[in-house]
């Protein structure tokens, strides 16, 4: 069947007039409030007028009525209903399993960053780059005048292609093994150091990150770093050019927020190759 009727000018004009007069469909919240009679009379009049001229909102209003009528009604004990419930259960269980098995732990930083929304990635990079950059500038480079704002924040966010990921292993786990070595790729201007620290779920602690070179000179310091996920993954993004060949030690101190007392300390060592 063809869903078209012959266009007729007077009808088209009338349709256009209705469209103009009735205005946009109300937000669902407004429709619900109207339906419940929980709305100022003037506003209710506008919505009522719209509904009288809008088939979709009339259907929506009926749907709301039906949803309220369904309250307190048990589903029929039919085989169909049971199979629906079963299908939905399987589907949602699969969803939960997928969520739980999300291989965050196994992902490289780059893979993880690709998964996050660009805005989140932007916030993350700026938030992490800033302290690391400041730390590097303060101690590794002479600062004759007050440090100017880091240019990286003023400029466009580094492209994901510019970030070289690097996973760090805790020193205890790497005992007897040479620390991992990284050769910065000259095409990638930023280095993302990723590591896992068992975090406390409470908010009583803070995580202090320090990066030192082989002479013990502090290169970067972040007094209150936040893990990126519930697994306790942290990522610190630094400018690659500021790393000279040599050994580095990254320390994460878990401190009590109020007193600053040290609870636990984790160390990660790595090497930068020429």
């Amino acid at each position, binding site marked *: *069947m063809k*869903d078209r*009727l012959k266009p*007729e000018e*007077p*009808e088209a004009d*009338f*349709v256009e*007039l*209705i*469209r*103009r*007069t*009735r*205005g*946009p*469909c*109300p*937000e*669902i919240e*407004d*429709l*619900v409030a109207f339906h419940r009679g929980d709305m100022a009379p*003037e506003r209710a009049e*506008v919505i009522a*007028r*719209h509904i*009288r*001229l*809008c*088939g*979709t909102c*009339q*259907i*929506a209003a009926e*749907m*709301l009525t*039906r*949803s309220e*009528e*369904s309250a307190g*009604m*048990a*589903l029929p004990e039919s085989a*169909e209903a049971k199979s*629906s*419930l079963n*299908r*939905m*259960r399987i*589907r*949602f*269980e699969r*969803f*939960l*399993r997928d*969520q*739980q098995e999300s291989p965050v732990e196994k992902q490289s930083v780059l893979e993880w960053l690709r998964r996050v929304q660009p805005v989140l990635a932007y916030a993350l990079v700026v938030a992490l780059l800033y302290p690391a950059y400041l730390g590097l500038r303060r101690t590794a480079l002479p600062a004759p005048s007050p440090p100017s704002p880091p240019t990286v924040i003023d400029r466009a966010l580094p492209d994901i292609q510019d970030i070289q990921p690097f996973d760090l292993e805790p020193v205890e786990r790497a005992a007897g093994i040479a620390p991992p070595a990284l050769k910065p790729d000259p095409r990638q201007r930023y280095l993302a150091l990723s590591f896992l620290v068992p975090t406390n*779920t409470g908010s009583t602690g803070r995580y202090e990150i320090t990066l030192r070179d082989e002479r013990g000179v502090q290169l970067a310091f972040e007094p209150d770093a936040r893990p990126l996920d*519930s697994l306790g993954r942290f990522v610190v993004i630094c400018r690659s050019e500021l790393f000279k060949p040599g050994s580095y030690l990254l320390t994460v101190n878990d401190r009590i927020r109020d007193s600053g007392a040290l609870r636990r300390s984790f160390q990660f060592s790595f090497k930068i190759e020429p």
Partner: protein
Amino acid sequence: MEDRRLIESYKRTREASYFAPLFERYQQRVFSICYAMCRDRGIAEDMVQETFVRAFRQIDHFNENDGDSCFEAWLCTISRHLCINELRKLSVRRRSVPVGRTEDPPNQEDSLASAQIEQALSILPETVRRCWLLFKLDGYRYKEIAELTGLAVKEVKRSIEQARERLRRK
């Protein structure tokens, strides 16, 4: 374990096993709403899934410690919104009329036009009028109108023709 405890535990640990009982507990209720609203088993099942997925992802926006907050009511609100959105998707896609808040009070001209329109439409029986509005203004097809109104497709077509005829005579 009560809802509040499960939600708290889930938020603290992000262990899906704390969320699963909430699905078991409210699946039927949400399905009842979605089925009542959509009158289509397949769509209702999709809406249930979407409701719980959304609740799962936005659980941090739900305050389980607020005495006025009820997880079941929150789920019901999500499912109602999703069902109405589903209805609107078809319509909005076809006619590209924005959905939103009309902040401006109606002016005199609008009120007059509105009164004239309503008077003109008042000659149509309610079902006929609704079919015509859905077809002409919201761009639904005969089959979709039939599904939405519970009428037969033939009846929908007849209603629309009848509306056109009567409006033209008027």
